[in-house]
């Protein structure tokens, strides 16, 4: 074992050695070193978060045929720091009649709910927060705290827009959490474990994307809704709800919501990569060094983040009634049927070779997706005919 193959452990042992050498209790030294490690990871995440502002602005400007930030520093790289300084020196206003404690607690919980997700994210085979055997469910638990922070922000602001925006956002988030939970069960079935690291390890022979392409897609849709990004960004329907639950927030408290949203998107890009695209695995390259594995994971996370941005900047916002109807009447039933089909196919194809298994899984997903689309198509045709009358086919022949 050396620094090249297991950097975290080597560094931790070295530091613990120094601390115990000073006469510190061994357990206390261990906790202190872990604390420092967590602090380091979260600091890196916050710095990354600052650059995500730059990435987001650059990407959106390219989508919209602009150049984006390009004045401060090379390629505008210093721009996000200017933004941060601006946010810090802004006045922190609190509206009259706001519930002060809850109002101040909400942005903290919002940011925390994103940061604690990284406790279970394996960044490399040996670089991970903790090896919880309930990792997948932990994501939902962290998301629950985020949902609570939104409801707290909306309620405590003493503002109608914030209240309605917060409640709508929460109604949407809880609605889309059902397909998300269901899709989390699919990698769990394949890997036979809820441990994130075990799920990555089990994707050695085949990525779960190939076993469950439909599940990958549904998970992405649910994640985008969970993040509250376009096309599901109803809280930011400026013309009706101003800025949703964070209407009354200013300065750094608003900054926490904003930074939390960006980091959340990037985090879930990474989790999408972990659950369906092999996480830090890439044709054995991760075995070379943990540092390479980190780069692979980061690349996958940024690609996932880019996909989320791509959807955001090319689709328009849909109305809340359409959004909820889409979830309750299409996505939720479909995800349950997909779960049942996956469980059944998994049992029936057990013991066959990886090729038969993979092709069978892939085919069952494609067939299910096609059938679902056909049902929706025939339903929408019926609805349209009810509104417009039957389409006149005969006239086309004249």
């Amino acid at each position, binding site marked *: 074992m050396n620094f090249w193959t297991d950097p975290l452990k080597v560094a931790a042992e070295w530091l613990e050695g120094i601390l115990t050498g000073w006469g510190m209790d061994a357990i206390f030294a261990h906790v202190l070193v*872990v*604390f420092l490690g*967590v602090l380091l990871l*979260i600091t890196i995440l*916050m710095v990354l978060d600052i650059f995500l502002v730059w990435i987001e602005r650059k990407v959106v400007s390219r989508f919209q045929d602009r150049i984006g930030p390009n004045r401060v520093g090379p390629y505008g790289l210093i721009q996000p720091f200017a933004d941060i300084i601006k*946010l*810090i*020196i*802004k*006045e*922190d*206003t*609190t509206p009259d*009649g706001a519930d002060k404690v809850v109002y101040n607690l909400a942005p*903290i919980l*919002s*940011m*925390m709910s994103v*940061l*604690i997700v*990284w*406790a279970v994210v394996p960044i490399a085979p040996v670089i991970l*927060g903790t*090896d*919880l055997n309930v990792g997948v469910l932990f994501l*939902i638990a962290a998301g629950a705290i985020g949902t609570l922070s939104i409801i707290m922000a909306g309620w405590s602001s*003493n*503002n*109608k827009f914030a*209240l*309605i925006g917060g409640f709508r956002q929460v*109604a949407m988030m*809880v*609605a889309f*959490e*059902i397909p998300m939970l269901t899709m989390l*069960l699919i990698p*769990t*079935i394949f890997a*036979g*474990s*809820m441990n994130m690291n075990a799920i990555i390890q089990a994707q050695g022979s085949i990525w779960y994307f190939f076993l469950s392409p439909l599940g990958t897609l549904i998970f992405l849709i649910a994640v985008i809704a969970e993040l509250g990004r376009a096309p599901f960004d109803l809280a930011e329907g400026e013309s009706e709800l*101003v800025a949703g639950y964070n209407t009354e927030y200013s300065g*750094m*408290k608003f*900054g*926490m919501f904003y930074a939390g949203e960006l980091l959340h998107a990037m985090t879930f890009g990474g989790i999408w990569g972990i659950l369906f695209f092999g996480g830090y695995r890439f044709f054995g390259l991760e075995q070379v060094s943990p540092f390479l594995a980190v780069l692979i994971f980061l690349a996958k996370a940024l690609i996932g983040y880019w996909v989320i941005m791509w959807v955001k900047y090319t689709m328009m916002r849909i109305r*809340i*009634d359409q959004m*909820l*109807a889409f979830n*309750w009447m299409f996505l*939720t*039933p479909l995800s*349950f049927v997909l779960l*049942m089909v996956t*469980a*059944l196919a*998994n*049992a029936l194809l057990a013991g066959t070779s990886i090729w038969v298994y993979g092709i069978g899984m892939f085919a069952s997903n494609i067939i299910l997706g096609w059938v679902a689309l056909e049902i929706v198509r025939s339903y929408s045709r019926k609805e349209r005919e009810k509104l417009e009358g039957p389409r006149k086919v005969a006239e086309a022949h004249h």
Partner: protein
Amino acid sequence: MNEWIYVALFMIVGAIIPIGAIVAGFIFGPKKPNPIKQSTYECGIEPVGDVWVQFKAQYYIFALVFLVFDVEAVFLFPWAVKLGQLGLYAVVEGIVFISILIVGLVYTWRKGMLEWS
């Protein structure tokens, strides 16, 4: 040692960082409150009426259906973990379990409770 110590540390640090940022904003930002600035934002118009508007009953239904499926998922996660080693009968048990709950979803749907208006 208990692995949840690490999660607790993540929570502590995850709370310290945003608190630090907000305190920094509080220290460096100006503090000049006045009644107009503190008033509730309603696009420049004087706020009218009570903030606590009456909500649609549908919100309750959404949260209710979510709660039921949340608990359902709790039962299904241990099932999913062991599914690979258990035979077909476990799959059938799971399918029965999910189907029973889909009946509830269909009932709520047929009552028109899942529609927004």
